[in-house]
């Protein structure tokens, strides 16, 4: 497949060769930002602030209609609240697969419960007699997510938070295969794709495979120091720029969201 995309020279000038992390100090640390065409994979820990980072990653939104946040754990309302709090653009595309899944599955269970307790009414029976196929609610969300990304145009920006939802429900091999597809699409279209996945939901082998596919790998860590928490991001892989490998300690501020610390803590 030697598909080539012709990029507009105006776009090339506008978008440049790198895109922002959404955290200016991270951009500086990475000598400009995330190179266009990069797949960034974040391996996360609970409490490391990766969810906020994922949202913040969408905030540059160079082209809001070519920017998407796919969340599997949060609701539209919750996400909108966070975006409002930090004054990030709210006109990007947001898809909450977790919410959709819950609505469908829970709704179906509720209906089944009603039928079992109250029985069928005549309209229900008439509808049942006309229904020839089972309404397949076990929708393939993994394919849907992949399709969302694959439908993005040149210089897109996409964030998937997180792959845990899929790792718990699908064959990890299939998830990794989809990751490859998205990586290829990202590279071809000079997009930027950021994906998070929790360390606890994947095996070392799967983690290694994902790290191999990714252009950039960040490990989101949290540790306690005394009575305080320290959150850090370890850039453990940066394709063709090993000088960008670093450890960045960060904190959350109400003004900027995630921001690296400039003061070094001494344990």
């Amino acid at each position: 497949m030697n598909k080539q995309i012709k990029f507009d020279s105006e776009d090339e000038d506008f978008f440049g060769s790198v895109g922002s992390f959404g955290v200016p100090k991270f951009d500086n640390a990475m000598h400009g930002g995330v190179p266009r065409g990069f797949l960034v994979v974040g391996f996360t820990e609970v409490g490391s602030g990766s969810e906020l980072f994922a949202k913040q990653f969408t905030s540059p939104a160079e082209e809001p209609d070519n920017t998407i946040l796919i969340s599997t754990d949060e609701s539209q309302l919750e996400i909108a609240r966070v975006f409002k709090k930090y004054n990030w653009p709210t006109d990007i595309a947001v898809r909450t697969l977790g919410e959709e899944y819950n609505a469908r599955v829970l709704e179906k269970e509720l209906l089944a419960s009603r039928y079992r307790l109250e029985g069928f009414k005549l309209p229900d029976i008439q509808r049942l007699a006309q229904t020839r196929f089972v309404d397949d609610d076990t929708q393939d969300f993994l394919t849907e997510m992949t399709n969302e990304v694959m439908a993005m145009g040149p210089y897109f920006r996409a964030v998937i938070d997180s792959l845990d939802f899929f790792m718990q429900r699908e064959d990890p091999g299939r998830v990794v295969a989809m990751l490859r597809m998205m990586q290829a699409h990202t590279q071809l279209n000079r997009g930027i794709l950021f994906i998070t996945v929790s360390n606890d939901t994947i095996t070392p082998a799967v983690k290694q495979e994902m790290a191999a596919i990714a252009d950039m790998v960040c490990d989101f860590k949290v540790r306690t120091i005394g009575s305080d928490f320290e959150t850090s991001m370890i850039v453990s892989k940066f394709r063709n720029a090993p000088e960008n490998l670093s450890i960045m300690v960060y904190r959350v501020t109400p003004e900027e969201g995630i921001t690296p610390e400039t003061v070094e803590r001494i344990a």
Partner: protein
Amino acid sequence: MDEILRGGIPYGSTVLAAGTCGSGKTTLGMEFLVRGALAGEACAHFTATEPSVKLLENIRQYAFFDMNMIDSGLINVFDMDVLYSWLGLDKASFDLEDVHALIKAIVDIVNTIGVTRLVIDSVTTLCYKIKSEQLIRDFLFTLGKKLATLGCTTILISEITSASENAHWSSFGVEEAIADGIIVMGDVERMGHLLRFLQVVKMRGTSHSRAKHSIELTPLGVMLTPMLKWGAVNDNTNRWGA
């Protein structure tokens, strides 16, 4: 059939139509419903073996069948898969609660639309999901009893592997006992050729014929004639080695 049964199936009976594959059970069941619908009775068909789309496609070839009966609601065809899905029963096996939910749903449907003719095709497939034999017996017994109370004449189609004289008509050891009637359908092998047969083994409340009848599935429906007695010398019903 009415001649063999000396009038027909008594109202409210639960009849087991046990047959080997391809013996014409589904066609017999569908014709039973169509004849009822022609007389203005509300009928229902629960299909567990074959998707309703395929069932209706196959049954269309018969001149006795009219799609209008489905469209007008005289004959209601229900896919068991869809019913399971609606009741939250899309799982590998059913427990006591699930079985009761299923019985309640079927009885609800019969009661609400006033079904007087019902076919379940097949009860064997339905019971595969019920893991405990005791639970299967309870299911069949309770269902039969409730349907009889509602005055619904029911044909339970059962799949058996052999229709020979020594065969059991029940897959689960209980259907024969709870059924008011038993119709056996199978094949006789006559010098390498298969002839379909039907035999009424039991029908409470009638002085039915117990002769073995040869059947043909024609576009007009099931046609029967007594099997030749001297044919039995060469006939072999132990086709599947039972």
